[in-house]
């Protein structure tokens, strides 16, 4: 009994002592509960706000806008890529060219062409650029410096052609270009180091160096190539100012009339070729040219120039074989002498033993002297020539060539001349 009383007394005393502390805790708990409730409300508000913002952002960017943004992004990436590729292409705009020097002996001696040259000489310095402006714009500019027979250096804007490539099948050029007849004229032209031989066939030489064909045209040129069942097919279609035979330094030669003409005479031509898939390195072609050519005589002679021809080229297995043929059927438009037929051609073959390439060429031109087109031209005389040569490649870009030629110059009457020439040439490309 005593123990029970004591315990009860102690419990009462504890309650009396602990009463104020319990009251404080309850107040703190209520305060905490209130804070927690406010925090929960705040969290709910923030969650709702975030949800509203997310919904708002999605609603503000409808599908069309998103697609536009994606497309814009793709364009930017594409432009970045195009910019990089364009930069690489533009970095390729280098000054390229050819140069050659040499020495020679010519036994030529006749009243028409005089005595041949002997000694050392400077050939050509030919510079060209091919700026790549964008994906489809093409440009080709060529400047040639050469020493004329009077010893002065002449500068010629050989080519100034700007083009646009629609596809592999069609590139349109405008300006002054190498007339795309046959093969040699566009493949080598002033690139002495490119051609195996030292000399060009004379009838295909430049207008002021013995050529009888308009090597340059100022006009427009459509060119292209496409795969065909039998191989690769290519073509050239061109038209421009008709050339004119004019007197320059006492010689009548063809002028491409780069400034335009006062009349409406035009040149037009084509070239079509096939590279058969069955024979690697072979190209076969047909070409034609038509023009109205006038000379600068007091009573000008006018001729309807009509030329057709064919060629074959084989460049593989160490061989290089070239052959071209030109047939003329020119009609006298001013003198009434009718139709005159002439022909010219050459065949050349070379075989490369490592760096050494011996070669041989036969060329011939039978030109009707009643045809004012040939008669008016200083170099429009028939001839035959045989050529033997040796090319030694000091480097893939430098060649040393030795050439011996025997020429039978005709159409000079009693002064027909047969003579030998020996020449050496050192040529480079860069």
């Amino acid at each position, binding site marked *: 009994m005593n123990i029970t009383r004591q315990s009860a007394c102690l419990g009462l005393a504890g309650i009396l002592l602990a009463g104020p502390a319990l009251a404080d805790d309850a107040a703190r708990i209520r305060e905490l509960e209130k804070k927690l409730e406010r925090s929960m409300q705040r969290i709910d508000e923030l969650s709702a706000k975030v949800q509203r913002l997310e919904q708002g952002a999605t609603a503000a960017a409808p599908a069309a806008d998103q697609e536009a943004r994606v497309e814009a992004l793709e364009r930017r990436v594409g432009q970045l890529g195009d910019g990089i590729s364009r930069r690489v*292409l533009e970095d390729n705009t280098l000054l390229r060219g050819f140069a050659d020097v040499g020495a020679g002996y010519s036994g030529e001696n006749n009243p028409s062409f005089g005595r041949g040259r002997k000694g050392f000489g400077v050939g050509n310095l030919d510079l060209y650029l091919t700026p790549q402006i964008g994906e489809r714009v093409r440009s080709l500019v060529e400047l040639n410096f050469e020493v004329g027979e009077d010893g002065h250096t002449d500068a010629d804007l050989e080519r100034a*052609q700007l083009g646009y490539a629609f596809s*592999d099948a069609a590139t349109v050029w405008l300006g002054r270009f190498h007339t795309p007849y046959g093969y040699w004229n566009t493949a080598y032209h002033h*690139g002495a180091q490119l051609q195996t031989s030292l000399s060009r066939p004379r009838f295909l030489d430049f207008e002021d160096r013995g050529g009888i064909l308009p090597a340059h045209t100022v006009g427009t040129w459509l060119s292209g190539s496409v*795969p065909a069942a039998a191989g690769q097919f290519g073509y050239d279609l061109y038209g421009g100012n008709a050339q004119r035979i004019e007197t320059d330094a006492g010689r009548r030669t063809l002028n491409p009339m780069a400034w335009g003409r006062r009349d409406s005479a035009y040149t037009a031509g084509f070239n079509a070729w096939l590279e058969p898939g069955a024979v690697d390195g072979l190209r076969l072609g047909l070409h034609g040219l038509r023009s109205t050519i006038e000379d600068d005589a007091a009573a000008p002679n006018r001729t309807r120039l009509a030329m057709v021809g064919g060629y074959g080229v084989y460049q593989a297995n160490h061989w290089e074989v070239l052959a071209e043929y030109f047939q003329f059927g020119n009609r006298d438009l001013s003198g009434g002498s009718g139709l005159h037929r002439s022909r010219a051609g050459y065949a050349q073959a070379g075989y490369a033993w490592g760096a050494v390439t011996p070669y041989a060429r036969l060329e011939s031109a039978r030109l009707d002297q009643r045809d004012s087109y040939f008669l008016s031209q200083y170099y429009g005389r028939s001839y035959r020539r045989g050529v033997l040569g040796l090319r030694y490649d000091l480097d*893939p870009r430098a060649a040393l060539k030795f050439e011996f030629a025997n020429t039978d110059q005709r159409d000079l009457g009693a002064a027909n001349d047969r003579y030998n020439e020996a020449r050496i040439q050192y040529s480079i490309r860069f």
Partner: protein
Amino acid sequence: MAIRKTFLAASAFAALGAQADGYVIAHLTVNVAPEEVRQIFTGNMQFSGARRLVPVDNGAVQGDFLYKVVRMDPDRYNAVWTRKAFREGVAPPPVLLSDQEVMDFVRRTPGAIGYVGTNPGSANVILKY
């Protein structure tokens, strides 16, 4: 023992063969047939549909590629492009110096086509040679 030697020799030969392999790769925008690669690298094919092709040479493995795919030695290849540039105003392919440079260029350049000597992974492989 003999079998093991044979196996090792065969493995080594296979490894050498794998090293000699090359891959012609192209940007995803390029869709060309394997037999067109030679035409592209000799300048006869410059477009794939409306897309202008941008061939790029790889100086690190150029000789192997030219021999196996273009079937030319480097001198003739350069001569072909010199004639192409001289006649048609077409610039030759730029030359990059490593597989990585070619892969980076091809990946980021629409119309690009190049070749590498190592496995290009997920790149658009046109031809394995």
